[in-house]
């Protein structure tokens, strides 16, 4: 079976709002960059299939998949839409190439969150209509409930969670694709408005607009298109349960299962030793710590100490979210996983400029689909072919 490589990336954004571009123009601009980056491929004839990622309600369309071909150069070509995060799209693109029938596959995910006027209504509509929705309120209360349980089970402190925000927003200052870089203090986070106890305002990733397009290729074609192919070594995905009542409120089980699958495909047996850096979902600050544990990069309840010991800072042994994460780049809906993936590719290419991690060879990208889901995905990438 052919190996699968990422040979081109294009990104527009991320910004808190991009009112000058329509969602189609946003995708067009990212696609142009990605095709140029992939050795100047022509989407009208070189691409075998296109995978886009979008959820109807985020877009304000019923059956949004009909609205994607033209801006990617995919009119009258082979395209489907995954109603999930970009990393779930990556899994699909990866499988297409693995079949041996596809040599070049384009992957796209975007966010035009600023077009959504009633964001929390959409999130609330994702909850059980009989058992939960009638209670009303802002659906982000689920994050507050989860954080509270997580802190209770692990002994992780509110200071450790707040420190994640300080770290990631500072990291974002060195990332030109990040919307929310800032130099803030621990106290500023701790004293920001209480929103859903124990969750505070600055611990919640604000929404952002942007688009990432990537070009994937089979081993045979990859080397013709680029000198620096980034190999997809493994992918994994999992959903725990949609039921709030029966899910695990301490552990991120969906991430544990997704990681297990990705590690298995990639042949990774000791993640903390074999992985050089991590990009993961920090949609809420505590999620960075909880996900780090679920990825088996430390024991359950130990991520806070890893943070305190400086291990997951940019210069530490296991840098986490050097891009700034969602807290620094903004929550980009289904493009959130693509933000993570983009950073992993740039780092492995050695093109992360002021935030480059020296000698990075294996990186992990992780995503979570946000409230109220228990769905996640993981990808392992490397710049050396086994």
């Amino acid at each position, binding site marked *: 079976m052919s190996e699968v490589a990422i040979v081109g990336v294009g990104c527009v954004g991320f910004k808190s709002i991009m009112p000058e571009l329509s969602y189609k123009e946003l995708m067009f601009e990212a696609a142009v960059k990605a095709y140029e980056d992939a050795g100047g491929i022509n989407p009208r004839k070189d691409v075998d299939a296109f995978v886009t990622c979008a959820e109807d309600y985020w877009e304000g369309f019923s059956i949004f998949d009909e609205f994607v071909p033209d801006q990617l150069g995919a009119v009258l070509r082979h395209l489907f839409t995954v109603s999930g995060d970009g990393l779930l799209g990556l899994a699909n693109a990866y499988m297409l190439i693995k079949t041996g029938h596809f040599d070049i596959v384009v992957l796209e995910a975007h966010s035009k969150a600023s077009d959504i006027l009633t964001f929390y209504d959409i999130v609330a509509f994702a909850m059980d209509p009989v058992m939960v929705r009638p209670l009303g309120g802002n659906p982000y209360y689920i994050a*507050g409930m989860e954080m509270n349980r997580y802190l209770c089970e692990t002994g992780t402190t509110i200071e450790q969670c707040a420190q994640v925000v300080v770290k990631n927003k500072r990291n974002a200052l060195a990332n030109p694709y990040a919307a929310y870089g800032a130099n803030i203090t621990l106290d500023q986070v701790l004293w920001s408005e209480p929103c*859903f106890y124990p969750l505070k305002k600055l611990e919640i990733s604000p929404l952002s607009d942007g688009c990432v397009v990537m070009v994937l290729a089979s081993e045979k074609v990859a080397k013709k298109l680029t000198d620096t192919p980034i190999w997809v070594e493994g992918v994994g995905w999992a959903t725990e349960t949609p039921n709030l009542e029966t899910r695990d409120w301490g552990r991120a089980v969906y991430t544990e299962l997704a990681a297990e699958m990705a590690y298995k495909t990639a042949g990774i047996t000791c993640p903390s030793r074999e992985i050089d850096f991590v990009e993961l979902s920090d949609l809420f600050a505590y999620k960075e710590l909880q996900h780090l544990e679920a990825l088996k990069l430390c024991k359950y309840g130990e991520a806070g100490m890893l943070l305190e010991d400086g291990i997951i800072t940019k210069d530490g042994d296991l840098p986490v979210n050097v891009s700034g994460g969602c807290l620094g780049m903004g929550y980009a809906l289904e493009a959130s996983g693509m933000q993570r993936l983009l950073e992993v590719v740039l780092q492995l290419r050695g093109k992360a400029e002021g935030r480059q991690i020296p000698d990075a060879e294996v990186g992990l990208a992780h995503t979570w689909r946000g409230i109220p889901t228990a769905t996640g995905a993981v990808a392992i990438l490397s710049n050396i072919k086994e």
Partner: protein
Amino acid sequence: MSLEKITDPRNMKHWLGHMETDYRYTLGIAGERFLNEIKENARIMGSKCKKCGVIYVPPRMYCEECFEKLEEWVDLGINGEVYTYTVAYLDREGKRLAEPVIYALITFGDAFGGLVHKLGEVKPEEVWIGMPVEAVFKPPYERKGSITDIKYFKPIQ
């Protein structure tokens, strides 16, 4: 693209859209019995798997582990405990609430699951994980077979 600096995105050309989506969600066999028991008898019921013994709350008509059909019903009483909770300070639009609302997941003994609901007759700073609580029902004539027939859960004195 505009050549002038845009300071208010609402000034960009746009079209406002509104999505009308009304549904009638079928409760199903398990859901109907569960809500009817709350309405008629003010009690919280679970459904039990005869194969693995797990009691589901809210009840379902099948076991997700064994894939068995569930036909045995168990009265769980009205007392439970706070498994986790939060104090919500923001409303649906993200604006500050005049009075914060406490949401909690209430569990019932060994039953698998629980109910997401509100807490009442308690101040936010008095709530703790593990706190015993009891369901407070609306009076019978106000109950209509909804999860909100339970007004809230309150601490057991």
